[in-house]
């Protein structure tokens, strides 16, 4: 009988580089040790994978890299719990485990020709990052790109190095905002929902993709609806405590949907139909 692989066994992988994105967020660039596994590790923007800190445990993280760039499997990770703190201790060359990719993805083909509004708060930018870079690399396929990125303070903004690259792309705007500025900060000091109102993006032929803390999503959603965005024009990626990624451990359901296999990407039209609301 054909032996099926053990879906709980991760691929052995090596950390190629670790970059500080903020005081508590690091970007891990990794590569699977088995070259065949590495070249077969294909994923789409919005998908996630489990990253193991061996001896501590594993946790799910969105894939921050855009697979088509073939520049390694990347995760942007904020140190906030047991596994993330253990990962932050690891350096270049360390062995980790990667299991995935899991979940659905942002339907990038459906977004072609549309104006895209990206709204990210804090580490919520991580799953939006591959969406942005997919659009940047195929710039003519999409309409206008408006990137709104908010964080608590200027130093908490992730992917700072890429803001200029994104802003220089045609028909692309990058709007940054912080909750509290510092002496060097010349930009906005405002909450994301207010910036949305201020920039007043048109809902016509538009898709808004939003990810951030629940409170930010809650109020931003209200403002987007005020601007005329319909529920099926607003997309997010949900997260929940997960252990398996396979729809078996029973942990990440929102009502009848499992975030791991039915999501994590949902439109607010879909979310509004869930019996349970988070």
């Amino acid at each position: 009988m054909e032996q099926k692989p053990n879906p709980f066994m991760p691929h052995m992988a090596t950390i190629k580089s670790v970059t500080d994105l903020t005081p508590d967020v690091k970007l891990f660039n990794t590569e699977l040790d088995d070259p065949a596994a590495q070249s077969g590790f294909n994923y789409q923007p919005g998908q996630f994978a489990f990253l193991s800190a061996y001896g501590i445990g594993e946790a799910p993280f969105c894939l921050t890299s855009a697979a088509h760039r073939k520049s390694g499997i990347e995760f942007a990770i904020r140190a906030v719990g047991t596994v993330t703190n253990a990962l932050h201790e690891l350096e270049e060359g360390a062995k980790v485990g990667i299991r995935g990719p899991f979940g659905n993805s942002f339907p990038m083909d459906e977004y072609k020709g549309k104006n895209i509004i990206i709204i990210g708060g804090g580490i919520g930018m991580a799953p939006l990052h591959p969406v942005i870079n997919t659009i940047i690399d195929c710039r003519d396929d999409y309409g206008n790109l408006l990137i709104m990125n908010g964080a608590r303070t200027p130093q908490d903004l992730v992917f700072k190095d890429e803001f200029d690259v994104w802003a220089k792309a045609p028909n692309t705007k990058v709007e940054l905002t912080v909750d509290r500025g510092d002496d060097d900060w010349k930009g906005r000091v405002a909450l994301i929902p207010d910036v949305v109102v201020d920039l007043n993006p048109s809902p016509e032929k538009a898709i808004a993709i939003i990810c951030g803390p629940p409170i930010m999503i809650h109020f931003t959603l209200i403002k987007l609806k005020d601007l005329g965005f319909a529920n099926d024009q607003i997309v997010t990626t949900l997260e929940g405590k997960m252990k398996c990624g396979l729809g078996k451990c029973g942990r990440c359901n929102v009502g009848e949907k499992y975030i791991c296999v039915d999501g994590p990407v949902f439109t607010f039209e879909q979310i509004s139909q869930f019996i349970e609301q988070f």
Partner: protein
Amino acid sequence: MSKFISKDELAFWLDGLMKDRQLIAPVIVDDQTVFKPIMNVDEIVFDYKNTVLSAKEWFFPTTEPLFTICHKDGSTDLAPIDIEKESVVFGIRPCDAAGLKLLDKVFLGEPPDFIYSQRRDKTTLIGLTCLEPAPQCFCGSMGTTPNNADDVDIMLTEVEDGYIVSTVTEKGKALLSDVKLSDSEKSWQEAKCPTELQVKEVPEAMKNCFEDNYWTRVSDRCIHCNICAYVCPVCHCFDIRDCPTSEETERIRCWDSCQSPGFTRAAGGHTPRPTKGSRLRQRFYHKLLYFPERFGDLQCTGCGRCVLSCPVNIDIREIIMDVPKLGAESGAKA
């Protein structure tokens, strides 16, 4: 005409099976009947109502390693776990066998759970008809019966001096290949398990009472001891953790329960189900709506263990009876 095996022949056959297989059967440990691997056929209890825990733990153990992480000479390697030994579970009741069929939907669905599927492949189930259901039993309402043979490989029914044998599957036939069964005219009084619970409309009714205060009211007395999940033959939620020693780490999985406050608490403290009411509601919505929507069956086989074990008398039978009324009330309001 049915096939018959005498008690002595049964003992001889089971004894023979133990030579190259693990035989798991009901035994008494500290006054409680539980499934355990046995060394001697004399240990087997035949006249029990039901075991304290279902046979689930022999396919989905309370705690089991998924693989081992070995740290040696600066390198890290992963060692897989394989289930090599053939097993026989003797004495499984139809409710627990039906429970395994429901667990199959979760664990054998794509991608199949490697360890569970190996255990299922390498285990033969010998069922034992219930001659007298216990007071908490309600399998009759949940689509099975005390002598339902659909989910086992061999079914035995006790009659005078021995057992009527029904060979259900090829796997069962193979296990019986060396046994000479005699023909018998013996019959038995078929047991009746209560069938009065009306379950057909329950999933639809569940859709109308999600916001009802009922769930908070019932949960007031819940002490989230998790026993309902642990005794359930169908509850499948689990945790995965690393258990390190000096040279290696076992990545284990263990049973978990949605009633535990930490079940959905994410790093950073965000918890989508912070109240007992929301957690109790999750348990019953999973069993009576989400599982049926995903797999087509209620996630309950009527074994009655949670009814018997709950220290505060939360009773799924009452909930099944209450839900249509709640649904009707909120439907009337809407």
